[in-house]
């Protein structure tokens, strides 16, 4: 279907006149056929055009508004029109797609994109679906796949303002990954929204491979989140702003008391070196709060997820589950942000340690990529946080890909993440973002040139996104499918008959 005709412009700023009975939209995909093939174009700006001079237009408008005149344009569809400004996305010659280096033929017609035009977008072997291709506001029935192994090991950023569909996109992504044997996801879920204890969620995945840890009202089949205190080491608290003397005191207690270092701080056990009483008192107070502990003379009590007896194998169980390409969701909605990050830090550190060992032993190739999903990522990847010292998440962002450990960082404030870290995140899923500083941060660090997409990003509606990735030929406009609808397609009632051998059935 012809939608317009190219009439002027230059490379990256091609201007087309819109056909009067058609409607062009920001972000719309169009095709200009050439002698050898075709060029895929995308609209990034829209403006008016007219054959009548501005002065005359203003006069005609005045006559209509002020004198209620019934003046009409002669042949209005010829004289007044809309213009679309477009950029080249890619040049397709037969089934081969190459970066565009020339302009479409002058005055060539532009038409709506069809499935056949997109046949060069093939499904990689390790594909995971990120959404359906979108042309303007129209979702095309054309799923977009990315190469999972590369995308997950080179980190993903999901950014957008609240309400633009980050959670739905993330739910879809987790759902799709559950059965992928090349990838495992560790999801730290501060809003307890992915498992779906009271709604449709990952618990409904037919594979039953999702492992869910929670500390409150544990649903049947889920695991109680209990972590043995002996698993916590001073290095796991590096994301917190402890002063140098406090850090030294922690290390001194750890050196002397080993796994019982937390207990020794709380119960004020003696050290070989002296620290200021105030330093130890502050340290004690902060650790008591962080780990939800209580003490009474010589006895330590655990009130929260950290425990003196239970949870000896929790971290190891989670890591083993991830190594089997499992999906582990940890409900962190019941504790503070710092406790959440500590839990994440404990698991991420152990995962990275194991994977480094596998690499040394030459066993890493057989292991799945482990990706850690972090909500409000600037809490650990923010400039201010990293100025105080590095942490395991920053380490993963910088060097995780060498060890098949990646991050899925979710934020509405990407500008708080240093450029060097953003540059290391090779796939960015950009949802609607109103704040210009945030748009700028994304545009500057995107894998493709998005400098002309500033307006398009601001105008992205709920569920609309642009995917910029080192592993995509161009910045892909996508529509995120509704999670509930997708899930309902896959939920099947199992009709198998259970065998309860050994139970006396009455």
């Amino acid at each position, binding site marked *: 279907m012809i939608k317009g005709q190219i009439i002027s412009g230059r490379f990256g700023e091609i201007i087309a006149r819109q056909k009067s009975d058609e409607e062009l939209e920001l972000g719309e995909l169009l095709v200009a056929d050439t002698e050898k093939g075709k060029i895929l174009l995308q609209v990034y700006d829209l403006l008016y055009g007219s054959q009548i001079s501005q002065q005359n237009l203003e006069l005609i408008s005045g006559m209509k508004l002020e004198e209620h005149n019934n003046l009409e344009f002669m042949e209005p569809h010829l004289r007044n029109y809309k213009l679309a400004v477009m950029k080249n996305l890619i040049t397709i010659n037969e089934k081969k797609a190459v970066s565009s280096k020339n302009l479409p033929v002058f005055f060539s017609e532009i038409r709506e994109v069809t499935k056949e035009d997109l046949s060069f977008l093939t499904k990689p072997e390790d594909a995971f679906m990120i959404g359906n291709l979108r042309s303007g506001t129209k979702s095309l029935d054309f799923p977009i796949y990315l190469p999972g192994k590369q995308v997950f090991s080179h980190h993903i950023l999901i950014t957008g303002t609240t309400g633009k569909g980050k959670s739905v996109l993330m739910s879809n992504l987790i759902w799709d990954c559950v059965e992928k044997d090349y990838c495992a996801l560790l999801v730290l879920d501060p809003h307890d929204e992915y498992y779906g204890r009271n709604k449709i969620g990952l618990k409904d995945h037919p594979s039953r491979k999702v492992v869910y840890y929670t500390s409150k009202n*544990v649903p049947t089949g889920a*695991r*109680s989140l209990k972590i043995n205190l002996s698993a916590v080491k001073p290095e796991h608290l590096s994301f917190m702003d402890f002063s140098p003397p406090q850090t030294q005191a922690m290390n001194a207690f750890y050196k002397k008391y080993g796994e019982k270092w937390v207990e020794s701080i709380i119960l004020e056990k003696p050290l070989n070196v002296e620290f200021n009483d105030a330093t130890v008192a502050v340290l004690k107070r902060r650790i008591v709060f962080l780990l939800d502990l209580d003490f009474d003379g010589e006895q330590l009590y655990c009130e929260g997820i950290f425990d003196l*007896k*239970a949870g000896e194998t929790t971290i190891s169980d989670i890591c083993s589950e991830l190594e089997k390409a499992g999906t582990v969701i940890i409900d962190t909605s019941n504790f503070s942000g710092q406790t959440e990050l500590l839990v994440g830090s404990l698991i991420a550190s152990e995962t990275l340690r194991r994977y480094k060992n596998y690499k040394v032993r030459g066993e890493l190739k057989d292991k799945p990529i482990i990706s850690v999903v972090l909500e409000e990522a600037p809490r650990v990847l923010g400039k201010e946080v990293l100025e105080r010292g590095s942490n395991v998440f920053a380490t993963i962002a910088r060097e995780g890909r060498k060890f098949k450990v990646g991050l899925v960082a979710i934020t509405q404030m990407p500008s708080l993440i240093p450029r060097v870290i953003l540059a290391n995140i090779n796939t960015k899923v950009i949802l609607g973002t109103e704040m210009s500083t945030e748009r700028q941060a994304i545009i500057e660090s995107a894998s493709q040139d998005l400098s002309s997409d500033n307006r398009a990003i601001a105008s992205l509606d709920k569920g609309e996104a642009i995917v910029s990735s080192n592993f995509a030929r161009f910045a892909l406009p996508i529509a995120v499918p509704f999670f509930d609808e997708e899930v309902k397609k896959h939920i099947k009632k199992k009709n198998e008959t259970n065998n309860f051998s050994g139970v*006396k059935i009455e």
Partner: protein
Amino acid sequence: MKFAHIADCHIGAWRDPKLKDLSMQAFIKATNICIEKNVDFILIAGDLFNTSMPGIDYLKETTKRLKELKERDIPVYIIPGSHDQSPSGKTMLDVLEEAGLMINVVKGTIKDNKLQLKFTIDKKTGAKITGLLGRRGMLEKKYYEQLDNTNLESETGTKIFMFHTALTELKPKELEKMDSNPVSFLPKGFEYYAGGHVHIVRKETIEGYKNIVYPGPLMPSNFSELEKLRRGTFYIYNHGKLELIPIEIVKTYPLEIDANHKTPEEVHEFIEQCIKNQDFTNTIVLIRIEGKLKSGRQTDINFKAIFETLYKQDAFFVMKNTSKLSSEEFEEIKINTSSVEEIENVIIREHLGQIKTYFSDTEEEVTKNIMNSLSEEKNEGEKVYEYEEKVRKEINKILNL
């Protein structure tokens, strides 16, 4: 209400007849204590016997003990464990139950393909007891997945749940590779959760679950357990209070030797020094040697002489463990310290889907069941053709032939 919680008696475990008898003696001693302490009833949370068809002597002795308990009006409530039933669910416990000597509390109905357990009510105390059996290879997991907890949780009164499975949240570090089920599979709000299967002593309270208890085995059943636990144990619950009762039939004397930078002769000398002039009457001596010998090989250590010395000093039994011993001169052999069951599970999983079967959905379960069936030993007095027929029937049942 006062009751005893026993688990993992493994009567008939150990290959050596001397050690085999210890498990029987431990059971006798434990039941004697129960009588002395005047308990209302006894819970046995699985693995009373080490196999589904225990030896006649052990069966006879156990029956005698159970009969005495019955005569003293101490009911025994039991769930089958992973050891004391065959893959198809056959167990000698059924015979003992038919004789009225114990009550298997694993009973229920199937509704909408879900398992609804029923309570067995203890007449004396009114305690409501139910539970789920354990099966080899964690096959009980499916039972828990299909267990309808609604009726169990809504029942009023003092409720006890018996289980024979490893619980994820309570697993000790050394058993981290063991398959386990989350606590959330158990029905909430019971007074007591009587566990078995994992040979640890542990009592824990987790939100919604009071008194989740593993009493430990009545008699440790391998070298490491003897080293770690030293003796058997069980719990007595007395009006909300728990008392751990030790069962010590023989003493244990663990001897740990670091062989690093030592010659076999030096190791020998060191052991001789350690055991010199000691009385080992009624004691199991456990010699564990770890590290890398400076020269020679482990067989150069004169264990024969050491054993002779120990038996001369009246040791009840002597055992050695050299699985982590290597030599600088000879190539180190990598020892996988996982349990046999874990190694089997790993191998099964690695080979799943390699051949086309009509049971591809349940291949793992079927494979484990077949292996379990084929590992069943011939019973005393059982004729070869009877044994073969039994195995054939089991396999046919597993394969739905």
